């Protein structure tokens, strides 16, 4: 039986990798992948802790909900990316700096 803390450390590492992608990547799709990593790190924590909650099954249930929500998020985010591409002709967030003006 794998101790809970190992799961949590791995999930922490995955989270940081995702964070890195969000902070540095030059392509909106890769940023999205980074976000997915972060969500999956959270799901991993849910599942790992849910192992000790046999009665309510809270961890697994909420992991399920989180997967569903992440998928919905991806759908919307990709739709936004496509629109951004239509509008700016690029999906490099570096080039999209209308916030500056």
């Amino acid at each position, binding site marked *: 039986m794998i101790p809970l803390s190992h799961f949590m450390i791995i999930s922490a590492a995955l989270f940081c990798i995702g*964070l890195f992608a*969000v*902070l*540095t990547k030059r392509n909106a799709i890769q940023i999205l992948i980074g976000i997915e990593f972060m969500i999956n790190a959270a799901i991993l924590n849910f599942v790992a802790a849910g192992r000790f909650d046999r009665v309510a099954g809270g961890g697994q249930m909420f992991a399920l909900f989180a997967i569903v929500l992440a998928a919905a998020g991806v759908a919307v985010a990709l739709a936004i990316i496509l629109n951004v591409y239509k509008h700016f002709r690029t999906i490099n*967030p*570096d080039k*999209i*700096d*209308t*916030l*500056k*003006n």
Partner: protein
Amino acid sequence: MDFLTFSANTLCLLSLIALVFPFSSFLVILQLKKSQGATISIFNISVSLIASLLVFINVWNSTTLQQQVEWFQVGTVSISAGILLNNLSVLMMVLVSAISLLVHIYSISYMKGDENIYKYWAYLGLFCFSMMGLVISDSLLLIYMFWELVGMSSYLLIGFWFTKDAASQAAKKAFIMNRIGDLGFLTGLMIIYSQFGTFDIGRLFNVGGLVDSASIINGFWISESASVPVIWLTIAGLAFFIGAMTKSAQFPLHTWLPDAMQGPTSVSSLIHAATMVAAGVFLLGRVYPLFDSIALNTITVVGVFTAFMAATIALTQNDIKRILAYSTISQLGFMIAAMGIGAYGESIFHLATHAFFKCLLFLAAGSVIHQLHHYKEHHSLEFNHQDIRLMGGLRKQMPIAFITMCIAAAALAGLPFTSGFLSKDAILITSFEWAEGYHGFKKLVPFVLVLTSWLTVFYIGRLIFKVFFGKSNYKGVKDAPWPMTRILLILAFFSLFPLFSVNPLSYDNSWLLQGFVPAGVKPFDIFHLLVPIIVTGISAIIVLISYKLYGGTATKQLPENGLLYRFSNRAWYLDRVYDLLFVRSITALSIISHKFDTLIVDGLVNSLAGLARIISDIIHWFDRHVVDGLVNGIASLASKTGDFARQFQTGKLQHYLITMLTLVVTFFIITYLI
């Protein structure tokens, strides 16, 4: 009559037929959009009436039927839907379908020539469907749904002439006022559900049912599954009463009903006299076992006050339909008060008799209005054809309308040999008997009711004498066509005593009342003798007085500017008070908050934005002069620093994210290390 006896399943099927047929006429007519809607809807409502009558014959005083199916299931909770047939619901079924049929037939000629006539028939069908559903449902949840449908269809019908501004305003008012009641109903539903876990009326309110067996111990209301402070019992009762108050137009939520007279008169007759307003009383009847003494006292007080108030308002109104509307409110007050003093059967009895004679009053008034309207169009005159001050002498020109209206007025006034006499006496005598056991304000209840019934005599006498006596202004006005007058004659027959009791002077033998009050005859006390004699005697005197005042050819002008007159004529200024209290105050509040928004919030935001602009200007200046100067001045290492500082204002999302996270992470690392 063996061939008319059916099994339980057949009865349920019959009541479903009575329910579904009006609805099918609604659907079919809306599909066809043709003017032959009349035939369809009259056929359907006749089927409904026949089915109701068959059900009535079988169920009345013999059985209580309840059949249900599972409606839906959520988790472990299962909600059922079904039909509950007992004395109350079969009586209401017959009442609703019979009056609907009569109004349908009357409408053929009354509404002739209206361009959207097919909508009228469709809406009537919808209304009958929802009313039928309301009375036969066995679940409070279903009743609630049909209750909403009733409100909705009455909205459609009041606003039927939606091009008239007043009509659409009135429809809106009725709809919004009814929302308040729906809120009360909903609250009651939720309390009931959380306490008993079911909506089933049979299980809740039968003798020995859940409500019966719930006990009150140490200030807690304890049912099988839950226990809450006893205040919730009172709140539940009052919540249901608020629901009933709006539908049955009780003070202070009655103001929609007089305005609802903007609809066609036949609609006023059907909805606002006979059926829809009875829904409130019906609801009280359904949940009757729930009320505790506080709720009952509230009901009594509200009912008595409404009866009295509406009667005083009716004294001075000049629009023929408004007088009838206020008299409806007043009579509903009687029924509600009767509910409050525990005279459940008497209240339902009055509901039934009132349905017929008030329907007749409206339809007869409708025929007068109809004829005057035609006269007006024919001679291209301009006058208000609903104002009783402009009428007079129609007795000879419209004999049928006159006779039938007199019968209905006598019933409303409670004169002997009419149905109204029986039911009003029943309520008055019961209220005297009830007041015997109490002190204080409760002693007043029967006297106020008696006073109200005298006021009733006066205002209805005023209406009759002003409209039908005196000098006629309009030459050549005739009685309405036969299709309309025959309905008046039928209803006039129903407004007399034979339908309800063999003995015209005593209500004790009425079969209808005996269906609700257990057979054990109450002791015959002094009130049974005194009340009818005194009330009727003084009523007769009042009829004479009002004839003297209004019946002569030269009508005496009463002072029309006294304080009391204005108070009554403006309906106790209640609309004005509501306007001031709710509409104005909310408008004022929104104006204030708008001001607050524009001045303070926007000002704050704008000044913040200005501040930020100034700061960023400073930073910008700093960038330009200090950093750039530094960059220009010092070597490439310094230039890197400048790049670093500038990157915080790149407008790029990731850079902002980096900045933010740097701060957060640094903060936590520092707190962790310290």
